[in-house]
């Protein structure tokens, strides 16, 4: 094993943190330099991440690659154990790509009240936290990275958000923290139940697979951990922080929140909760499926009632994450593959939708659908066209990325894992609910397009000198648009990565 294999993912993860420290040292008046540095640092980190993806051995199936396992805090048994496998690689790369595109977007737009240095510094800190979560294989390390994202996001919402930002920021912080402290409790419980005591995920999995955790314990521990993840996802009924946080957050904040942070929750289920506590997963699966089905239908209905464009997209996230959770709840290989696909697709599509909404607001200075009044295709044909394209991708049109995650999640719930054979009927009911949800989803997205894009342009906007999509926007959006099409046409690109690791996981449930 050479130095690159050991340190590549550490370099990628901590490069943004170093970049943040460098940015702090730049004098305040060198605004352009700061923005340039932000792009350079995220670009460099992304290059490293892509190099990792290229060097990743796709043939080996499961097993950690680029693994490092060093003592970190010996007294409490926490180790610096990081690595990457088929489940984490797509999300890891997604983190760096989205952060880079956000940094490019920041070249033109830094939301009021400015403070570019702090803005980019916090964004880079956020990037380190998110990337670290996807590579940590030690629960303490995982928890530290998990919480590391809270503070920067709090400030991103609280300082650069819109009118009701302080309320949204503190609500986001308290909700997530409340969930995660119970998660920590669950982690500690697992640590003490395992012999020998360990926070190491791989060893805990081995211990769990050998039946080390009693059934009663698994139910309690799974409940505690799932609460932490569920708030982050967010699953209905823990979702109420999300519409507020998304609506008030600046564009970059929304993109990263939807694009990456929500995935930390679903990833947590796949990475920690399912493999370590399979019995707990099996017992909770129908309930998770139920909440997911409720989320899909509820979110779609809520979307139909939204007047604020950004809030509508935020609620649509709840629905999409419902599909992801439904896939996970089936405990099948197809379902979990679908979930990971859904996470990536949602990251690309919803990230892109928030970019669009940000740009719409940047021009109209309102996000109220009624005030926009329609006719965007006339006024801003490019922006309108992109918006329509992404909205249609989001509603799950076959051939685009949004389709695969949803359809396969529904497919898998027709035939859940062997351990859930007693609940097949229930899961089929969830499938029907999900199907109704997709119809409603198509309904609200098309209705939204009808109200925003179609129709005639209201007089008040006729003479406004709105620029259509500008070059910075093109640069930061094209990669996303291309990926949406490519993943839609060649889903194998992603399934090929995840399949090996997912199959190993699904075997726990007789899949």
């Amino acid at each position: 094993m050479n130095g690159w294999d050991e340190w590549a993912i550490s370099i990628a993860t901590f490069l943004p943190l170093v970049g943040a420290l460098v940015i702090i040292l730049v004098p305040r008046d060198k605004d352009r330099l700061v923005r340039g540095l932000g792009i350079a640092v995220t670009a460099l980190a992304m290059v490293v991440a892509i190099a990792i993806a290229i060097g990743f051995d796709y043939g080996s199936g499961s097993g950690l690659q680029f693994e490092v396992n060093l003592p970190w805090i010996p007294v409490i048994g926490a180790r610096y154990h990081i690595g990457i496998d088929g489940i984490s690689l797509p999300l890891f790369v997604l983190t760096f790509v989205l952060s880079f595109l956000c940094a490019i977007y920041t070249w033109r737009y830094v939301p009021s009240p400015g403070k570019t240095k702090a803005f980019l510094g916090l964004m880079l800190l956020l990037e380190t936290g998110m990337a670290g979560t996807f590579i940590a294989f030690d629960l303490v390390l995982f928890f530290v990275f998990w919480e590391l994202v809270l503070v920067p996001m709090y400030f991103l919402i609280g300082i650069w958000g819109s009118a009701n930002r302080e309320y949204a920021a503190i609500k986001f912080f308290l909700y997530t923290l409340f969930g995660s402290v119970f998660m920590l409790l669950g982690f500690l419980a697992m640590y003490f139940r395992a012999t020998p005591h360990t926070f190491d995920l791989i060893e805990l999995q081995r211990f769990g697979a050998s039946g080390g955790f009693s059934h009663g314990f698994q139910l309690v521990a799974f409940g505690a951990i799932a609460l932490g993840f569920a708030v982050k996802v967010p699953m209905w009924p823990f979702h109420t922080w999300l519409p507020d946080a998304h609506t008030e957050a600046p564009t970059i904040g929304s993109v990263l929140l939807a694009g990456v942070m929500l995935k930390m929750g679903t990833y947590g289920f796949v990475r920690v909760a399912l493999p370590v506590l399979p019995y707990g997963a099996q017992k909770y699966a129908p309930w998770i499926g139920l909440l997911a089905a409720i989320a899909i239908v509820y979110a779609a209905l809520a979307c139909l009632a939204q007047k604020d464009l950004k809030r509508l997209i935020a609620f649509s996230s709840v629905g999409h994450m419902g599909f992801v959770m439904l896939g996970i709840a089936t405990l099948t290989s197809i379902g979990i593959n679908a979930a990971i696909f859904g996470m990536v697709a949602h990251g690309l599509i919803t990230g892109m939708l928030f970019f669009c909404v940000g740009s719409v607001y940047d021009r109209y200075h309102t996000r109220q659908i009624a005030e926009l009044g329609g006719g965007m295709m006339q006024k801003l044909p490019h922006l309108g066209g992109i918006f329509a394209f992404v909205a249609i991708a989001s509603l799950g049109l076959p051939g685009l990325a949004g389709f695969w995650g949803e359809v396969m999640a529904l497919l898998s719930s027709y035939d859940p894992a062997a351990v859930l054979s007693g609940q097949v009927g229930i899961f089929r009911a969830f499938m029907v609910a999900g199907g109704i949800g997709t119809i409603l989803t198509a309904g609200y997205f098309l209705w939204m397009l009808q109200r925003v894009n179609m129709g005639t342009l209201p007089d008040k906007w006729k003479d406004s000198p709105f620029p259509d999509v500008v070059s910075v926007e093109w640069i930061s959006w094209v990669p996303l648009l291309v990926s949406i099409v490519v993943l839609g046409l060649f889903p194998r690109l992603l399934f090929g990565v995840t399949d090996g690791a997912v199959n190993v996981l699904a075997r726990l449930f007789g899949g």
Partner: protein
Amino acid sequence: MTQAIDYHAILPELILSGTIVLVLFVDAFVKKRSWVAMPLSLLGVIATLVATLTLIGSNRVTFGGMYVVDDFAVMFKTFFLSVAVLVLAISLRYVRDGRSYQGEYYFLLLISFLGCVMMPSSRDLLSLFIALELVSAPGFLLAAFRKSDLRSNEAGLKFFLIGVMSTAVMLYGMSLMYGVTGTTRLVQIGVALAGPLTQGQETLALAAILFIMVGFAFKVSAVPFQFWAPDTYEGSPVPVAAFLATASKAAGFAGLLQLMFVAFPAQFEFWAPIFAVLSILTMTIGNFVALQQRQAVRLLAYSSIAQAGYMLLPFALVSADQAVNREAFAAASTYILIYAIMTMGAFAVVTAVSTESRALPFSDFNGLTKRAPFLAVAMTVFMISLAGIPPTAGFWAKFLIFRAAIDRGGIGVTLAVVMLVNSVVSIAYYLAIPRAMIFNEPERDRPLSSPVLVTGVAVISLVAVVVIGFYPELLYHFPPLSTLVGR
């Protein structure tokens, strides 16, 4: 009976006492330049610190067992003296600008620290009592040091009345304990209480333990003996409040640790549940009242009450299992040290802000990011650390307590859940000052001119909080914390 006194063992106390006498003369003889009291004190404290460091690794017993210097004692002494350096640093400008008697101020402050330094070595009810009173008595005067300010007078009076009452109760407890066991040495009390006791002796011993606990509960501002803390902190000079919240409180805990783990471990079934109740009440009431606060020092006062609740939690975990006890002991001592660092840093920033306005409502912090970016960032880190968000030192402190609690099982899990919920609630008020600093526009335009020494204290605390946050292993390079447990 003549006994050889181990002068090396008490060298730190001797040097500090000498310094105290010198400082007292400053006001009398060099009145014109009474600011020299501060450098003089600082020199003395540093010399004391050096003397303490020569004792590392030694295990000395003197005064017939009343006074012990071991790893536990040296660690706490080093800690107290470091805090003393920091408190002196933030005092200089505050006291000089306050036009009060500087010699007197430093004289009283150093006596309090002398008590602190004696505390972890005192393994006898008598020396423990003397140490505790040495910490408290000058504190009463210091709290009332801003003589012309009514609030300061109130601060001193409240502190004095409640302090004296609890001292009386504690002394009564100590006398009962002597009556039961016939000794004042902690180790011998431990032996006597672990042996067979008649029904009457048992009852008396339990009553004595309860009374002694009351005295210390006052010292560490545990509910229901916390009433004095917010008013006293608010009325005192800010550096004095910093002292009360850090060194004075830590001294109380150092004493409590020795009493509970050396003298009374046999009766844990009696006192562990009491600590559980005290801990829950203290953290919950502290946190929920803190939510209502609109003044910086009062906020820190209620924060220090809530934090005391967390520190009391490990006491409630004590059981017959020595491994768990050792873990609880280590968790409690580590928490105290980390808490003191965070709180010291926060008080340094408050001291800097107090150069402009002594009232210190949150609005004084408005827009501090623009006026003093470093202090604003430092304060934010301290607050996040106090709330226990990783990766800061405060998180690891809480983590150790959770760990010990979960390991204990039973009541431990319940306590951990209560503490978890509390620490989520606490984030709501810990973010209040950062909110004012970052989200609000400044009320004054010119930059805040913070005294160099005060900024220095903030820097030191910030570095400690961040470094421990990223590399918590550092803490465990200290001598084993659990030297007192299970002997």
